């Protein structure tokens, strides 16, 4: 399944945004392609940062891309 939709053109960027209550939210933005589908943009929170979160999200996207009618 990984060969069908390889992660392509990955760009990572850390950004901070102020929430409405004044707190600062820091997150990492991943922009990537899966095969020829994309671009996908996923934000993962940096505090607390989970390294596997991005992998889980990519797997979920891959699974449903496979399920889409061709």
């Amino acid at each position, binding site marked *: 399944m990984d060969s069908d939709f390889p992660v392509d053109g990955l760009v990572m960027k850390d950004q901070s945004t102020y929430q409405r209550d004044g707190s600062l939210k820091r997150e990492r933005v991943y922009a990537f392609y899966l095969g020829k589908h994309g671009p*996908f943009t996923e934000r993962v929170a940096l505090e607390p940062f989970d390294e596997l979160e991005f992998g889980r999200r990519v797997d979920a996207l891959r699974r449903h891309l496979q399920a889409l009618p061709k």
Partner: protein
Amino acid sequence: MTPFDVDALVAMLLAFYPVPSAANLATARRERPEYFAGAVIISTSQDKIRLPDGRMWDLIFDSSGPVAGRRWQALFIDPTAPAGEADPFALEDGPLDPVDEDMALGIVGAGGSFEDLVTAHLSELQGTDAVLQRAGEDAAAFDGAARVEGSAAAFEAAVANHVGIVAALEGDDPGDLVQASDGHLALIAHREGDYDEPPPPDAPVFDPGDPPPDKGGADNPPPAA
């Protein structure tokens, strides 16, 4: 702005928003706007999106049905497709052209409509009823014939009066008056000569009295400023 890929959008919706609903679509639009590439959610059921370039997709299958029956989908809405099914019994075009309903029919003459012509001439005849009635009355009420016949008597009386005046003038001899006036010439001193009567007394002259005493000032002081 990221380019739009509808497959990525549907995969994201399937992965992270398992329950297809308009609310989840709005949540996805808020949390992951890059997938929408500037599209806005349209339609009353809030299940379709429209990109800035006008392309539209229907994203929820059977959005008005029960929740269990809904699916995320990417159905492209083609604006050029006919709205409904083609009519299988459509009539073919006939030889006639439809009438242009905006075209004005009829010829309007210089005098306007027939009603206008009749009304205009009727207005000229106003008041003629009274004229006709009065003319009939004069012919019926004329009694001048009797007046003409009755005037002969007045005429004869005038003639008689005139004859009387002429006779009186004939009989009036002013000879004695002429003779009396012949002697007046000697009584009137009519010879031309100098006026020798004494002159009449002068008329009284108005006396204004003594002038006021002179105080020594100028005769014509300048006017006040």
